[in-house]
């Protein structure tokens, strides 16, 4: 029982870091440029397809991942230069409409290029099975996700909080005119941030591809989760996104693992069987509503 609990806790951590990979790019673009990007999920989908295609062509998952992420970054650059640059200054409603339009275009374009059926993206052979850690078996590939999640969190922290570029970016976000007056090209800086965000999206798509279906519409299913995470954590805060991911990951995992058993102990079997799964499905939304009720700006509000 303890061992199962430990394994579930590790699962929670793992799912949390998975969510962090999804949310990191979103919170950057959202927090720094104040731009609601519904097409975040589409970049994730396109990233996964590009990685799958590159992995298939090169025969190696890792080469595929690198090429796919590079290609997605390039796509991000094109999008920023042609469209997003104009959206930063617009209100949230215009951003929602424009990026909703991008979702429609991306889904249809992917369907036209790769077909309506899901495509294959498998982990490298060496990581496809489980490994033994501390008395139980755990999928090796999920450990890779954990490692990447931690690495991305560390890298982001260093970049945003410790580096000079990060300082400029934060300055540009809080007062664009003043920063420009100091001789910093904020426009170019924002382009860099957006491209970096797109690359993170594609990285998430490529890394999660071996665990999840790579298909049209996969972006929308993660989009909501990513938003929930950054809202709970507080928009624009990398620390918030990390904490939010871990909370959501743990609550969701433990909810699914424990709720049915718990309810069976206190309710008649029939009622428990109906209530348990329903409650587990809405748990993270309850959590978000609850957190926002007490902390209307999320746990770590980035701006006052």
């Amino acid at each position, binding site marked *: 029982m303890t061992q199962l609990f430990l394994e579930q806790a590790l699962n929670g951590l793992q799912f949390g870091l998975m969510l962090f990979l999804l949310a990191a790019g979103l919170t950057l673009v*959202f927090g720094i440029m104040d731009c*609601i990007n519904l097409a975040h999920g589409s970049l994730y989908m396109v990233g996964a397809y590009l990685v799958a295609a590159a992995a298939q062509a090169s025969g190696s998952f890792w080469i595929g991942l690198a090429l796919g992420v590079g290609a997605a970054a390039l796509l991000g650059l094109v999008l920023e230069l042609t*469209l997003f640059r*104009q*959206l930063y200054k*617009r209100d*949230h*409603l*215009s951003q*929602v*409409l*424009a990026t*909703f*339009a*991008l*979702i*429609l*275009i991306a*889904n*249809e*374009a992917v*369907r*036209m290029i790769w077909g309506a059926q899901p495509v294959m993206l498998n982990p490298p052979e060496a990581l496809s099975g489980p490994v033994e850690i501390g008395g139980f078996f755990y999928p090796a590939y999920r450990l890779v996700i954990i490692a990447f999640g931690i690495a991305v969190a560390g890298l982001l922290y260093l970049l945003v909080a410790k580096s000079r570029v990060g300082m400029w970016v934060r300055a540009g976000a809080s007062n664009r005119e003043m920063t420009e007056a100091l001789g910093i090209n904020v426009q170019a800086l924002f382009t860099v941030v957006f491209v970096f965000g797109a690359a993170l999206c594609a990285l998430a798509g490529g890394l999660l591809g071996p665990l999840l279906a790579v298909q049209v519409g996969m972006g*929308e299913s993660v989009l*909501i989760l990513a*938003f*929930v995470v950054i*809202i709970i954590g507080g*928009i624009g805060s990398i620390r918030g996104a990390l904490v939010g991911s871990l909370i959501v990951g743990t609550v969701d995992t433990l909810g699914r693992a424990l709720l049915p058993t718990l309810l069976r102990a206190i309710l008649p079997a029939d009622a428990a069987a*109906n209530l348990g*799964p*329903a409650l587990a*499905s*809405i748990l993270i*939304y*309850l959590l*978000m*509503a609850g957190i*926002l*009720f007490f902390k*209307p*700006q*999320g746990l770590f509000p980035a701006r006052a």
Partner: protein
Amino acid sequence: MAFYRPAPYQKPVVVALLLAMVFLPNLLTAFGQEFYIGLVTRMLIFALAASSLNLVLGFGGMFSLGHAAFFGTGAYVAAICMSSGISDALFVLPLAMTVAGLFALLVGAISLRTRGVYFIMITLAFGQMAYYLFVSARAWGGDDGLPLVGRMTFGGMSLSSDTAFFYAALACLALSILFLGRLAGARFGRVIQAIRENETRMEALGYPVFRYRLSCFVLGGALAGLAGALLANLTGLASPHLLQWTQSGTLLVMVIIGGVGYLYGGLVGALVLLMLEEVLAGFTLHWHIGLGLLLLGIVLFAPKGVAALFGKQHG
């Protein structure tokens, strides 16, 4: 933005259009195109739903992404009434509005503590909760939805013919728009628009800001419930699909296309979007690309929406 004011030429245009709508079924029947009566009815119902969101979003300044929850709730109320043998519209429609309104009261009371993007997401969270609850509610058909056997009656009059139901939907929409127009010009409408513009100032002037916003949110929810009940009667089904966040998104897109904060914004947006769908889908199965490009064009070149051409806003 500033207070909503109708353009001087608006009234005659609307009256003329309404008259045209009254004769539309006869016209369509004369040309053997009865099918379009159902299609237009659907447009009218979505116009009502989008208008209800426009009250919340455009006039109240509350960016809700959970509006479909109220829309769907109305649909389920209608279906549940029908399955328990209650079919009089004079009872069903007010009940649908009341239940949807009460649900909005609960959601609003909690959500309105937050602002901006946080408000978007908390309304989305409630929408998702409602969606998952209806999906797993076996008694109401879960994912299959709850079918309606037949349509409502109106004080003993059957609405089962498409033409009769068209008039019922048209009446609901016209009355709602009339109500919204009066509301926008009345004290209540002025206050909520002023709150949208400058909340702190209104607070300082002693207006109970929270209560005004909540009332506006509840009214919007109730009207969405009305639209949902009508849609369930049109299609003969209340399904969880109506509560999905994509449905909220679609309503939102309608309002933005039409024109946020314009009385006819919701109506125009719903008509434009549904017509685009109908026309584009006829050309190609890849019509989503065309629709996406058009929406991008609207954002970039007509940022105030289509209805901005009809209604002026000036301070």
